[in-house]
């Protein structure tokens, strides 16, 4: 069947599928780093906590973990919309709102980390 027409879409699904798994690993690793960092604090108070996030490595790690989380959430929420929301207009509206919300969360995280 070499001359059979193949209808497969734009192949972006496999990219989302793979990135969802890669971001999952990044989130799990960041969780481990954060958990151990907090456990290793001599005491959980403002000074030690703020000091932990004053570190540039921790700032960047948190931003990368956060970016992975936001992309991971986008793929997951889009999957839910594709499964349950059938009217195209409503689905598109919800997806647009989700993208804006997640992008806003990303900006908020930058503001928190760098105290803008």
């Amino acid at each position, binding site marked *: 069947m070499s001359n059979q027409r193949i209808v497969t879409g734009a192949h972006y699904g496999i990219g989302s599928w793979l990135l969802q*798994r890669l971001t*999952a*690993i990044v989130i*799990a690793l960041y*969780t481990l780093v954060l958990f151990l960092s907090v456990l290793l604090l001599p005491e959980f*108070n*403002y000074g030690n*906590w*703020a000091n932990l*996030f004053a570190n540039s490595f921790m700032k960047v790690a948190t931003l990368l973990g956060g970016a992975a*989380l936001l992309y991971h*959430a986008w793929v*997951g*929420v889009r999957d*839910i919309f594709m499964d349950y929301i059938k009217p195209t207009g409503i689905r598109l509206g919800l997806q647009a709102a989700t993208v804006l919300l997640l992008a806003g*969360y990303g900006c*908020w*995280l930058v503001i*928190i*980390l760098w*105290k803008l």
Partner: protein
Amino acid sequence: MAGLTAKRPVYRNIHVTQILGYRLPVAGIVSILHRISGALLFLAGLPLVLWLFQESLISELGFDRFLAVVAHPAVKLVLLAMAWAFCHHLVAGIRYLLLDNHVGLEREAAANSAKLVIVVSLALTLALAGALFGIY
């Protein structure tokens, strides 16, 4: 002729009201809980954690406000729900990564790992609940 054709069953999409009538296998329960926990983390977990994170870092006063908010019993219950959602999502996610790599695909192994996911995520939630409610 009409009398000779047997009545064939008609299969349609499951309606929302029929969901509870279906008995899901344990892997199916883990699967739908993975979705529900993910949705919960997106809807409530993300904004809550970002807000608490902001308060905790913004200043010493903010940190005290953060401690006061987290000490509230109602907030603790919400945090407990988020802790379960996170633990379930993480542990079930590890199972899916293993399944993706063809580890434990056999029917019995998959059912056992699904049960293990429920047990481990509940145990982790319990451990976090201990910290949350100041048992240790």
